């Protein structure tokens, strides 16, 4: 089969040159990195931004009178403004830096949830949530006497939304949904769900960990109240998460963590709080990594997020076509690439994903094998886990071919074992 050519405006070969790690070999084979939904690799610009900060500007922020402190503070706040532009937030103050998506969602569960959820209230989630958009809400429900309801998942791996209006009833106070399923790749109709939540006066939280890195996101168009994502899944360093929140909601919320930075004035009999968003950034934040994240946003913005999406969609369509040619493979999630992010999830009927993962690793192909932190979803499909390949800007059709060759090798190795 003649490989597809990726559109010329998106020069994958030159993109690859920006990523030092893509030069390395694994078990004597060129690295084929297809675990981007877990974390992405970093371009030289991000690595250099991190080193540059430590070599030239390192200081604590928001308190120093000296030059370094001013420079560090300015760079940190400029990143906040960059993030706001990246997702079209109305103002930089709507952006709170956290450690990761998980912490961002926990922030909402603690600071908004404990103030606004009470006995008998309902929280609506979906069966396809990552544990990080599931467990914080289950705990909130347990502590407040609220109940959790789940929107089901169809055999095709899409949300069962036909009865959404009545499912989101009068007692629903919060709806939390993933933008793109990390395990199946399904792109959810977030606008529709947010609108249904708002008709009942409920707050809508979107887990954007697999959304913001892969497609244009406009939080004002989505109209969501909170949107959470992680820098490390979009070329940035680990240890930086983003919570976008509607300003009025953030302003009305009590702090999450407390200590330095988040206060305005502290007396022996109490304290009052700093303004949004600093109210939510207690202690010295991850200054260097936030600042280096800026270089990642610049890199993606220069490529254009619509082009990023188009490239991933093309790779996904190609991968789905190739996988479907091996008829024995069970593919999870929509078969139409226009309805899924750059994720393909599949299984051999008789070979455990970890056995597939081990053999692919020997071929230099890095994929994820397991439950993808979505155990209820795995139970829904009656499997312990799946094999997941996930793509990003630097992946090529030749790498999809390498994946397929590896998969053929798995079958050759196992023969008809377990059948």
């Amino acid at each position, binding site marked *: 089969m003649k490989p597809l050519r990726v559109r010329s405006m998106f020069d994958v070969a030159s993109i690859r040159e920006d990523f030092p790690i893509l030069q390395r070999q694994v078990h004597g084979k060129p690295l084929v990195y297809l675990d981007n939904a877990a974390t992405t690799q970093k371009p030289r610009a991000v690595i250099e931004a991190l080193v540059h900060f430590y070599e030239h500007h390192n200081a604590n922020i928001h308190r120093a009178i000296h030059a370094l402190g001013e420079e560090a503070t300015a760079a940190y706040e400029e990143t906040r403004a960059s993030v706001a532009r990246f997702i079209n937030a109305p103002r930089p103050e709507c952006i709170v830096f956290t450690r990761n998506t998980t912490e961002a969602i926990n922030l909402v569960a603690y600071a908004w949830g404990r103030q606004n959820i009470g006995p008998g209230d309902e929280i609506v989630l979906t069966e396809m949530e990552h544990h990080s958009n599931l467990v914080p809400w289950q705990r909130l429900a347990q502590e407040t006497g609220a109940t959790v309801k789940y929107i089901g998942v169809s055999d095709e791996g899409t949300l069962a939304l036909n009865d959404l209006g009545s499912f989101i009833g009068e007692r629903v106070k919060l709806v939390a949904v993933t933008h793109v399923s990390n395990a199946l790749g399904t792109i959810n109709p977030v606008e529709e769900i947010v609108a249904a939540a708002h008709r009942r006066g409920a707050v809508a939280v979107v887990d954007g960990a697999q959304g913001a890195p892969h497609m244009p996101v406009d939080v004002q168009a989505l109209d969501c109240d909170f949107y959470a994502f992680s820098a490390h899944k979009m070329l940035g360093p680990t240890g930086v998460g983003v919570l976008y929140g509607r300003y009025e909601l953030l302003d009305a919320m009590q702090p999450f963590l407390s200590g330095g930075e988040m206060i305005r004035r502290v007396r022996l009999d109490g304290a009052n709080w700093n303004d949004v968003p600093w109210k939510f950034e207690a202690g010295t934040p991850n200054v260097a990594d936030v600042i280096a994240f800026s270089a990642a946003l610049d890199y993606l913005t220069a490529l254009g997020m619509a082009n990023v999406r188009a490239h991933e969609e093309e790779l996904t369509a190609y991968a789905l076509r190739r996988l479907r040619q091996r008829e024995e493979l069970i593919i999870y999630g929509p078969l139409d690439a226009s309805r899924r992010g750059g994720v393909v999830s599949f299984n051999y009927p008789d070979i455990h994903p970890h056995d597939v993962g081990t053999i692919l690793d020997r071929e230099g192909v890095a994929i994820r094998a397991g439950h993808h932190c979505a155990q209820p979803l795995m139970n829904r499909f009656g499997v312990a886990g799946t094999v997941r390949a996930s793509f990003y800007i630097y992946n090529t059709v030749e790498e999809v071919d390498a994946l397929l060759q590896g998969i053929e090798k798995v079958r050759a190795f196992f023969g008809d*074992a377990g059948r």
Partner: protein
Amino acid sequence: MPVDRDVELDELYREIILDHYRNPRNRGSLEEPSLSGEGDNPLCGDEVKLDVAIQGDHVAGVRFLGRGCSISQASASMLTQAIMGLSLDEVEALFESFKGMMYGSDQVDAESLGDLEALQGVRKFPVRVKCATLAWNVLQEALDRHRKAKT
């Protein structure tokens, strides 16, 4: 198969391991086990449930159920064969030898382990060692509970 054989991979998936995976021995459960246990590796979803019948001080019957990767299920199957008829002290000693082999102790005579020796190849794949030891950990916890209940 391709010409460039991957020796370490061949060692991991020795034919005897694939055979136990394909045709698990002693699969099932016992009606009145003297001890049972179950365990899983939450990260990979491997599950093993063991039933053991003890007469006097010896293993008189053993069955396992489970699902998971080839290594975890083959190891469980091999365990059921290996401990059948042994005294509890012998089971304990075998467990120590097996763990010694999996964690790279030089003092273990792998040949004394019989078929279990085939699992030696797993050592080269550190993330898979916990697959091979799952059934053994389930057995040890069940034996510990059994002992505590008796004393």
